[in-house]
């Protein structure tokens, strides 16, 4: 009969939640958000880093500066015809910039006078800014080359006009930044177990109190233990759905070939995803029970939401400390639920090996906590003060 009751509660909560937009959003919106955020940040970095990419330069009067055009093509740029109305096209953002070679360019160039080229751009737009800077650098480079040739032709060493050169050593390399962004992935996975089933957990506890359905629910012959287990399982299902879809999306958006220019190995495939899942399952079982224990003290959905939002801080604080390497990892930490998973998932993503003892210690401690917490939910559901006060 216990199983019969558990099944009834489980099914009802699943159907009820599947029809609830709030529950679906908390399970799936977050699952989408994390990996997309990481992927787009990495993608942005990869774009900036990607110097080999061909850029297309709209040029007006290209025929007046054939040597310059040749030089630019040699660097991998392609020369495109200019738009009809240059100023409007740039202002509207149709093209990021237009290079104009004025009529008197050839004449001044031939006479060894400084020959101007005009670069039209809109400084208020950020797109194409890096390409523009690169183009300016190339033109300057061509100028330097021409100057050197002219000096050599007159028997002078070109270094005379270059008393100092700057050689940049950028330490915030895209690789290091990329590694930092990738390092935030474990936190997203960990938080997924706190977010995925949150709405269902609240609806199944504080929600029953808020809509006044708890009393009639308790008037049935099912025991509060059966109610607690059925509700908990439904929350776990949503939690796992959120986590699994997050892992799936991560595999799709973090394909290594998309980040080739980044200089950091993005390696998140089915194997890593499966590892994360195995590591997270005990947590995905425990966190819902913890959330239910807390939410049951709340009389309304909103009140419960406040409590559970604070609960999310629980993994964030040690997570940051871990990221900053503010403390050394000592063995007992592997037996503390949440902290254990946090340490181990970072190791997993970095490709380090996790000892079996550490994994089982963490998993067992977490599962044990889950059992105790579910038992506690059963006790609390039947508590007189919880049923009678609204």
């Amino acid at each position, binding site marked *: 009969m216990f199983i019969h009751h558990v099944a009834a509660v489980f099914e009802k909560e699943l*159907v009820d939640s599947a029809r609830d937009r709030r529950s679906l959003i908390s399970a799936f919106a977050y699952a989408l958000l994390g990996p997309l955020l990481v992927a787009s940040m990495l993608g942005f970095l990869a774009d900036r880093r990607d110097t080999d990419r061909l850029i297309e330069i709209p040029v007006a009067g290209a025929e007046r500066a054939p040597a310059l055009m040749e030089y630019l093509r040699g660097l991998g740029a392609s020369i495109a015809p200019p738009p009809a109305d240059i100023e409007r096209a740039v202002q509207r953002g149709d093209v990021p910039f237009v290079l104009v070679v004025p009529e008197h360019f050839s004449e001044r160039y031939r006479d060894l006078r400084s020959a101007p080229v005009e670069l039209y751009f809109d400084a208020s737009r950020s797109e194409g800014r890096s390409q523009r800077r690169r183009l300016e650098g190339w033109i300057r480079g061509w100028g330097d080359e021409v100057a050197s040739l002219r000096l050599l032709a007159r028997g002078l060493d070109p270094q005379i006009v270059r008393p100092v050169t700057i050689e940049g050593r950028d330490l915030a390399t895209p690789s290091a930044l990329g590694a930092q962004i990738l390092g935030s992935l474990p936190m997203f996975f960990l938080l997924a177990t706190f977010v995925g089933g949150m709405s269902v957990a609240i609806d199944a506890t504080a929600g029953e109190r808020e809509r006044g*359905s708890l009393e009639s629910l308790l008037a049935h*012959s099912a025991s509060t233990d059966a109610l607690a287990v059925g509700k908990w399982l439904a929350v776990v299902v949503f939690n796992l759905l959120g986590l699994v879809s997050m892992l799936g999306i991560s595999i799709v958006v973090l394909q290594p070939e998309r980040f080739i220019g980044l200089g950091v190995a993005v390696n998140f495939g089915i194997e890593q995803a499966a590892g994360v899942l195995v590591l997270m399952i005990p947590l995905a079982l425990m966190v819902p029970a913890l959330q239910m224990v807390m939410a049951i003290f709340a009389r309304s959905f909103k009140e419960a939401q406040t409590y559970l939002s604070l609960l999310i801080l629980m993994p964030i604080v040690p997570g940051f400390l871990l990221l900053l390497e503010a403390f050394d990892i000592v063995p007992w930490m592997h037996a503390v639920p949440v902290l254990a998973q946090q340490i181990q998932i970072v190791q997993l993503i970095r490709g380090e090996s996790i000892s079996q003892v550490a994994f089982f210690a963490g998993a067992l401690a977490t599962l044990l906590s889950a059992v105790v917490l579910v038992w506690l939910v059963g006790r609390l559901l039947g508590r007189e003060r919880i049923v009678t006060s609204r």
Partner: protein
Amino acid sequence: MIEVRGLHKRFGDTEAVRGVDFRAEDGQITGLLGPNGAGKTTTLRLLYGLLQPDDGEIRIDDEDFAGAADRGELRRRLGVVPDEVGLYSRLTVREHLRYSGRLQGLGGQVLVDAIEQLVDLFDIHGLANRRTDGFSHGERRKVSLARALVHDPRNVLLDEPTNGLDVMSIRVMRRLIRRLAERGKCVLFSSHVMQEVSALCDRVVIIARGQVVAEGTPAELLARTGRGSLEDAFVDLIGSEEGLG
């Protein structure tokens, strides 16, 4: 059959129920009448085991259930309609009935038949497959009564079943309650509304300040107080007018 002897319940410093005794017979409608705060709801909650009595005896169908560890058996014999309707807005009426039936241990064809009988009895064919979101108060009360009957209990407890209903819905609800008594069930319901009790009840138990102050048929109560109306008799019996909310 429901029988209560010397029931006590204390919340902190206040003693909500102080020695309630009464008996409700099968095939009869027994009304628990009393002003607000008299202890009616607490008495009903003690009866179906939501609250634990501090002292006293609860007998359902001649079996002792006070302090019984097995709430399941107690609740299989009772159909409970609490004051709060408490429906799930995203479930249909049939899904509510099915959920209640399964929580009472029913399943399979038995449950399917039970649901269809209730849909017939309550005449809710048009509502049965609709989600309860947007139902009128009367419709919600109906569903809440229907789900309490899904396991065909011998005893039915109703806490203020006509609270907040319009005249037409009240008449429908009364007819349904009478039908239950005609089928031989023991119906116990609480109310603070005089007309409700006089219109429905075979027997009346008047509660004030956590104690039973009088018990009998409406006619007996009138005779005992020598009053012409039940309302005057009620005021006489509870000893003051102040408790009348």
